């Protein structure tokens, strides 16, 4: 039974790769950017965090700004982000990453500053800091990983947990009567004048990964212009706590998360200037 499922998944993966047509020679060359460390990641197999980390590392390396970049890690699964990113980093208290990033950027305005936060961190305990940091138009990049669940603490409900979705604290599924609706914080944030760029991407397919990288790249480039805040939501998966295989989780993400959290730009610069 298991073997059969594995074979099916392998086939599915192969088809996916073929469909995306990424099997060209130049893409087969793998190079680890120097902005990633050699530390093996603690993330569960198939988790989107590793991909998101790599994208940040690639962007910082490609823009050649390692010596000008300071990151802020949250509390949550990505609490150890600084173990993997070869970048100066500060580990914030739960929910406070955007305030910590504000402090850094205000005293070092010429550095590139980003925060990396999960849904519990950014949209539950840290909502106040998130809204006000965005509203002040802090010239930083906020990367928001939304997987609809608390990963680190073992699968509790997040503010972004979908209606009916089972977690350890919504064992019968999220009930709107009791817990309200999932919070679309990115839509809220896009309304704020201080926000220069706001977009939602995913890392569930190679094509989406490429788009996610472009969004992160934009976020770093816009800091150069000093126009305000860039906000990139990355819809991601949590195979362990969703209790699915990685491939099932990516499918589930496509079928359930993306209809509620549709991908695309929520706010783009009116007359985007060239950063270079």
């Amino acid at each position: 039974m298991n073997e059969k499922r594995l074979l099916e998944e392998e086939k599915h993966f192969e088809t996916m790769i073929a469909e995306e047509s990424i099997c060209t020679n130049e893409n087969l060359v793998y190079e680890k950017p120097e902005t990633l460390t050699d530390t093996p990641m603690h993330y569960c197999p198939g988790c989107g965090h590793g991909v998101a980390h790599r994208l940040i590392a690639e962007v910082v390396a490609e823009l050649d700004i390692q010596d000008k970049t300071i990151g802020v890690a949250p509390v949550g699964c990505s609490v150890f982000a600084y173990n993997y990113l070869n970048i100066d980093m500060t580990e914030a208290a739960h929910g406070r990453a955007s305030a910590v990033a504000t402090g850094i950027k205000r005293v070092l305005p010429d550095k590139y500053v980003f925060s990396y936060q999960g849904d519990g961190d950014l949209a539950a305990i840290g909502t106040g800091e998130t809204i006000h940091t965005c509203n002040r138009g802090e010239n930083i990049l906020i990367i928001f990983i939304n997987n609809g669940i608390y990963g680190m603490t073992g699968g509790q409900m997040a503010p972004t947990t979908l209606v009916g979705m089972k977690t350890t604290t919504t064992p019968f599924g999220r009930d709107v009567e009791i817990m309200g609706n999932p919070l679309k914080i990115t839509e809220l944030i896009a309304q704020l004048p201080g926000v220069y760029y706001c977009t939602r991407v995913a890392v569930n397919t190679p094509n989406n990964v490429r788009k996610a990288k472009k969004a992160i790249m934009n976020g770093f480039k816009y800091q150069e212009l000093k126009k305000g805040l860039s906000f990139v939501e990355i819809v991601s998966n949590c195979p362990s706590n969703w209790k699915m295989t990685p491939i099932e989780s990516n499918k589930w993400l496509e079928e359930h998360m993306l209809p509620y959290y549709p991908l695309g730009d929520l706010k783009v610069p009116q007359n985007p200037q060239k950063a270079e």
Partner: protein
Amino acid sequence: MKELKLMKGNEALAEAAIRAGCDGYFGYPITPQSEVLEYLTQHAKERTGMVVLQAESEIASINMIYGAAGTGKKVMTSSSSPGISLMQEGISYIACAELPCLLVNVVRGGPGLGTIQPSQGDYFQAVKGGGHGDYRLIVLAPSTVQEMVDHVKLGFDLAFKWRNPVMILSDGALGQMMEKVELFPQMPRTNEIFPWATTGKTKDRERTIITSLHIQPDKMQEINLHLQKKYKAIEAEEIRYEMIDCEDADLVLVAFGLVARICQKAAQLAKEKGIKVGVFRPISLFPYPYQALNQLADNVKAFLTVEMNAGQMVEDVRLAVNGKIPVEFTGRMGGIIPTPEEILNKIEEIYVGETA
């Protein structure tokens, strides 16, 4: 030439921050210390380019301090009791990550929302930790508007010397009252780059990680042992106190901050009645002058601790004295300042008891 000015405590403190070359202030309004933020927003930027930001809460302020202090910049915040309570988690992180910064608590009466009148009810919180875990702040207790100025400079020096948060434990009366102060000359803002700071990883060094997360118990223990060793060194080097007329005193009043000045008046009134009373004023509340008090206990009959709280520092006086002589307490709570007369009454009560 001396630069003398008549200034309100909170404004004098803010002026001192600008002159000390402070790089950034992050704060949130709360009575009785909002003048610090008001004064800085009005004067700081044009004079030194110092960053001044009104945050959305004290929680945000202290986390901005955490981020900014981590870059090696000279940063500070100020608040009053309920706001300082909100900051405790952040202060614990800063202490563990060993970042220098200056925190100012212009204490008001509590518990709860309490009153906006002066109090010393936050002694335990400031001196014994306040937030979670085993950590200490260096705590300075000014008793005059002049010391509100001097302790800013001293506070930043100590914070960077020991890479430790320093707290100025003031009170609502010191913050609001006006006195003559001598201001120190403007110091330049420095651009010193510290090896422990997050400034962007260059090729010639490893990346800097500022964190208080150490999952492995042996590593966490190592961090704790290191911190405790540092606190011991601070205790050996940074004790500050003042003794007034203690040489031939029968009774010594022990008080910090503003109350120490009221005690001086009470001691004067007692002398007029033929009672020899001295005043011992701890200036650093951590590290606490245990040894000096212990030695003093050999030469006097009793201590009377006077505080604007239910009796907090008196526990440290008793620890210092270790049963050698009686340690009495009198105090006022809820934002009421004790008068010299009521302290005198207590002195007479004890004096009669001790000489009977």
